[in-house]
């Protein structure tokens, strides 16, 4: 029997849960725990400069690995500073465990110094939360928190930890549970075989099928199974913003991303499909456009682990509740063992049609011959420089869409962005979380001069821990995405979307001990990229690339229209 204090138990239980890094910031309510961190060397703590960044670092790690990232923050402002990070994780179903200090139990409810009802604040943005009311429960609660965060549809779990639960001189028996059982929580393990059979029957009859897959495929580590399914069926595939990389971006059968800024062919193929196989995707409003005009001829098979995602916005004809991987396994074995065949002739006609659609827009953009670079060409150059192999995180705005459109991902877990909440300030700390855990890989944060300033203080953290991420700032001197909407819907009245008084980013990053490279012209870009990824391989490099402020992201779906209603450029509509 081992006797530990509550503070020691926290750190020990994290170690037993397999945690290497925790991201956090200390404060009064957590000092006992921080002392426990100090006294051991298994669990390493990364001190951020703002708690929001701690949450995004943990999130970036989680998105790249599938394991829950761990955040530790003090009560009151420390806890509330993580709210955006927790909500970001919740919206994209990312596993995370957030340990929040709390005032001692006897002061809770008294408006004590740095007391805030974090459980109440976080309730709508967590998968679950706990308050520790007895130190003996700590190992159990930590184990449950990881279990809940990582299984089923993943999500963040908050643990509220009153200071008196961690007293160094009060010791309790420590037992880390080998297995976690929660009687009221049992995520589905298999899809319903009858439903899977129905789906396979529909697949065999389809004339114009399309696979629409999302982040759920990546979360369930099932992109190999998706690829297998496509190999067997030969159907076209489109991915959501969250699903990019689940199917190889450079594969002929990939139609690109769908939705608001999806490709012409993906959106039009969706619109004309007679069968949509939705896999780990949730018919988000940024995908469907107007739901009443959504894909009028399509029957829908919807595979998702969360029943509440099914028939929420678009009614499914064949709902299949289960883990994507296991359902795809069952589907594949059924397809292999059935005598039926897919309708090859119809499929050939469908592919011909799709290939006719492809050149209509073709993700073309016009370069400015003498003027500024377009953001798209910078992404393409970065793709070349990294041979398509980098982890790419992004912030939110036009640069995010350009990265999603012009950097085809061939592997899952490499494209890391805040798709659901759209959190500016996410990209840089997320990149840091990834780089710390994958020191040998290239990690690039694609950002804008607006977004990067939302967590730029983390340059300091990067110096402290030596985190050589690359920051590619597509500097258009404006809140580009806002400006685009103002151009399109407000007759170009650029209300508060212009970034006046930008800092000199080069001097700024240099003052933090890093390297900054400014790129004004196309000619300078190749050398700058070369230096970024080779010469300064082991340094943080901030590439401040001036790009055309007037550029818009296209295609862009027309609001309230169907999937196929798009602007293809500033003047041409479908």
């Amino acid at each position, binding site marked *: 029997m081992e006797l530990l204090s509550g503070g020691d138990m926290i750190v020990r239980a994290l170690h037993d849960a397999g945690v290497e890094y925790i991201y956090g910031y200390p404060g009064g309510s957590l000092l006992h725990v921080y002392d426990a961190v100090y006294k051991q060397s298994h669990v390493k703590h990364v001190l951020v400069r703002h708690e929001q960044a701690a949450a995004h670092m943990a999130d970036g790690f989680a998105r790249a690995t599938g394991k829950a990232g761990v955040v530790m923050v003090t009560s009151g402002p420390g806890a509330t500073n993580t709210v955006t990070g927790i909500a970001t994780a919740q919206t994209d179903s990312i596993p995370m465990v957030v340990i929040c200090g709390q005032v001692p139990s006897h002061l809770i409810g008294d408006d004590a110094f740095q007391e805030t009802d974090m459980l109440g604040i976080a309730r709508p943005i967590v998968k*679950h939360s706990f308050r520790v009311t007895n130190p003996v429960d700590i190992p159990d609660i930590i184990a449950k928190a990881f279990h*809940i965060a990582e299984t089923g549809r993943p999500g963040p779990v908050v643990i509220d930890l009153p200071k008196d639960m961690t007293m160094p001189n009060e010791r309790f028996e420590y037992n880390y549970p080998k297995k976690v059982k929660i009687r*009221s929580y049992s995520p589905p393990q298999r899809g319903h075989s009858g439903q899977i059979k129905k789906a396979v029957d529909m697949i065999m009859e389809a004339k114009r099928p399309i696979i629409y897959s999302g982040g759920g495929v990546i979360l369930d580590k099932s992109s190999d199974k998706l690829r297998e399914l496509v190999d067997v069926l030969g159907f076209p595939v489109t991915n959501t913003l969250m699903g990019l990389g689940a199917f190889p971006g450079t594969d002929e059968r990939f139609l690109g991303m769908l939705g608001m800024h999806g490709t012409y062919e993906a959106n039009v193929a969706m619109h004309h499909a007679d069968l949509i196989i939705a896999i780990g995707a949730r018919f988000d409003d940024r995908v469907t456009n107007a739901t009443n005009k959504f894909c009028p001829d399509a029957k829908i098979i919807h595979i998702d682990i969360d029943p509440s995602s099914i028939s929420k916005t678009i009614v499914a004809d064949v709902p299949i509740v289960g883990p994507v991987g296991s359902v795809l396994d069952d589907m594949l074995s059924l397809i292999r063992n059935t005598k039926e065949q897919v309708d090859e002739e119809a499929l050939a006609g469908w592919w011909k049609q799709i290939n006719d659609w492809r050149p209509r827009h073709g993700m073309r953009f016009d370069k400015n011959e003498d003027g500024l670079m377009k953001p798209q060409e910078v992404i393409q150059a970065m793709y070349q420089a990294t041979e398509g192999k980098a982890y790419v995180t992004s912030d939110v705005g036009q640069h995010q869409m350009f990265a999603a459109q012009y950097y085809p991902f061939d592997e899952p877990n490499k494209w890391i962005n805040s798709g659901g909440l759209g959190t500016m300030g996410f990209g840089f700390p997320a990149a840091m979380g990834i780089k710390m855990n994958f020191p040998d890989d290239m990690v690039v944060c694609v950002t804008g001069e607006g977004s990067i300033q939302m967590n730029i203080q983390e340059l300091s953290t990067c110096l402290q821990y030596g985190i050589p991420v690359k920051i590619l700032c597509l500097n258009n001197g404006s809140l580009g995405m806002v400006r685009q909407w103002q151009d399109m819907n407000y007759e170009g009245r650029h209300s508060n979307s212009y970034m006046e008084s930008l800092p000199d980013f080069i001097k700024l990053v240099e003052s933090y001990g890093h390297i900054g490279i400014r790129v004004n012209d196309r000619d300078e870009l190749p050398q700058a990229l070369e230096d970024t990824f080779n010469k300064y391989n082991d340094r943080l490099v901030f590439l401040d690339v001036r790009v055309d402020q007037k550029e818009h992201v296209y295609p862009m779906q027309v609001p309230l229209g169907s999937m196929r209603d798009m602007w293809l450029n500033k003047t041409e509509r479908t």
Partner: protein
Amino acid sequence: MSQSQRHIISILLENEPGALSRVVGLFAQRGYNIETLTVAPTEDESLSRLTMTTVGDEGKVEQITKQLNRLIEVVKLVNLTEGPHIERELMLIKVKAVGAQRAEIKRTADVFRGQVVDISSSVYTVQLTGTTDKLAAFIEAIGPSCVLETVRTGVSGISRGEKVLSL
């Protein structure tokens, strides 16, 4: 679009601090409405039983039950309105009772199988159990103008026959 109807959702909930706030918070967060809500521990003190009535079309109520099921502390859930069930609500009602009204109110309470549980010189307090409709009918019968105060528990419900909601 299917029609909007009243549904009685019955939930076995972990009897833990914060569990109820998650249920209620979910309704606020997602814009669902709660018409009535009752909650109390069960014979197994680790569980609470919660009954709520809500109004919505089929799709909405399906979403409500799915979202409720996502809450970790929801152990089991049933939409009682989907099958034969019994529903009851208890009302305590204070009515003005002077002169001839006194006998009349007593008679009406008898017809509705209510009981007068407290008496003062000018006020009767009547206790009444039944469906929500029956309670409304009683108020209608005695005349809303003599009602001084009402308090209702909200609907409790249980399914008929062999079917039980338990662990």
